[in-house]
């Protein structure tokens, strides 16, 4: 039972409010998206949820436990893939387990069980620079998943990829999420991506950033092939553009 609740979070850098009164929720197995303009405070909010920053006011709870300002509870994939260049892919993916004190052998065994499922077969012994951007992103996501199966925060997971790789990755992402049932909150400033991938969308707008709207995408999963060209899709898009 994974449930993340963020209540009335406000944070400022040197007296400048960046985010104000943010309240959001993430329920079990949900894919929720945080959509907003660049510089709007999305990453800042993630830093608060992950416990890296302590908010000025408000709190964060995970399954009823207060985790405000405490790192180490929620999986967080930062804006870059941040794979360590001097570790093989398998050792990168195993990193969260090693940090928890697990032995190298058993950590490797555990992560290896997922390589196939994540479309990463035969990359175990390679180094990050030998992989394409898409593959690195997959590895980073698998590492995120290895940390915790409760809740994951993904900061613009696909923004660094080219359009073709991106649509490939979208398909892969929905497929994997369906299999592993991870509740995720992800950031994007790509409206199409938001509609395509999420069950619910929060709009974060203004300075300081506030949650100004919540849009529920009522489209069954797995999504039909031509969803991104359907009338419903355009309706959602129009609604979002009006509100941004």
């Amino acid at each position: 039972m994974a449930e993340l609740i963020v209540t009335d979070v406000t944070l400022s850098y040197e007296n400048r409010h960046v985010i104000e009164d943010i309240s959001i929720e993430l329920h079990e197995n949900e894919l929720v998206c945080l959509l907003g303009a660049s510089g709007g405070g999305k990453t800042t909010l993630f830093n608060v949820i992950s416990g890296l920053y302590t908010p000025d006011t408000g709190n964060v709870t995970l399954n009823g436990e207060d985790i405000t300002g405490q790192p180490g509870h929620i999986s967080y994939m930062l804006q870059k893939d941040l794979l360590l260049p001097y570790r093989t892919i398998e050792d990168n993916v195993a990193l969260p387990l090693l940090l928890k004190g697990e032995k190298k052998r058993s950590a490797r065994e555990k992560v290896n069980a997922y390589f196939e499922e994540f479309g990463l077969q035969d990359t175990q012994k390679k180094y990050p620079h030998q992989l394409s951007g898409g593959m690195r992103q997959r590895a980073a996501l698998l590492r995120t998943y290895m940390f915790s199966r409760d809740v994951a925060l993904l900061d613009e997971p696909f923004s660094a990829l080219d359009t073709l790789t991106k649509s490939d990755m979208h398909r892969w992402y929905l497929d994997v999420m369906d299999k592993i049932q991870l509740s995720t909150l992800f950031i994007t400033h790509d409206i199409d991506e938001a509609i395509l991938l999420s069950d619910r969308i929060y709009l974060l707008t203004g300075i300081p950033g506030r949650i100004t709207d919540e849009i529920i995408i009522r489209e069954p999963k797995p999504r039909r092939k031509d969803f991104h060209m359907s009338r419903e899709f355009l309706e959602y898009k129009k609604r979002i553009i009006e509100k941004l």
Partner: protein
Amino acid sequence: MCLPLKRKLQNTTSKRERKRIQGGRGQEQFSRKSYAGEKVWPVLTIIIILGIWQTASSTGMVPRFMLPSPIDVAKAFIIDFPLLMSNAKVTLLEAFIGLGMGVAVGFLMAVLMDRFEKMYQAFYPLIVLTQTVPTVAIAPLLVLWFGYEMLPKVILIVIVTFFPVTVSLLDGFKSADRDTVNLLRSMGASKVQIFWFVKFPGSLGQFFASLRISVSYAVVGAVIAEWLGGFSGLGVYMTRVKKAFSFDKMFAVIFLISVISLLLMGAVNLLQKKCMPWEERE
């Protein structure tokens, strides 16, 4: 000494970075080809210099006793080989002990100064100061204080070798990527874990660049310390042959010292390849 050294360190790393950035296939082949070309030129230059040298001393342009010909030097090297080796053993032992301790001290200093800002503020200026004191000036003092045995030599080597290591490691630790550190923090990593998983491996390239410098400092430091007092070692041997005006033997020992330094630097390169396998598979 401090400034040019820092520049040296930066050069070595930035060159590698550049190579990594260039990366592409075509570029790689291009640089490999020019690398083969790079090797021909120094060899050619050395041969030409040796040729001029040989002619200069065998035609009597320079008096033979002042500038022995390369062939004389080679002869002296062969005749004195056993003696050179037994002295080299002593010098190498001092260099290794000094270098080992110097690296250990340098590492410890870097870790402490990275971990505690106050330590950094307190010790960094002092460390730089130790480097402005010329080696040749403190060596006699060390001999007076600690005698003719190994101790003053080792101390001198520690003083000259720890600095490059401290500066480069500290630089490496401080330039650890902030986002990567945050990623590990978000996974609940402790400071010690962040050090071993991010800061230390990320500084290895810089560490080896500084180790190459420290290795040659160690050999030269040992020789200088031996000049000023001792019972055996290449420096002692050098002062002896100098008193006898055996220029050929002088040259032979100088040659041996640079060969030793080169071999040691080569060994560091090998060690680096072993320790940093990810640099290999480009």
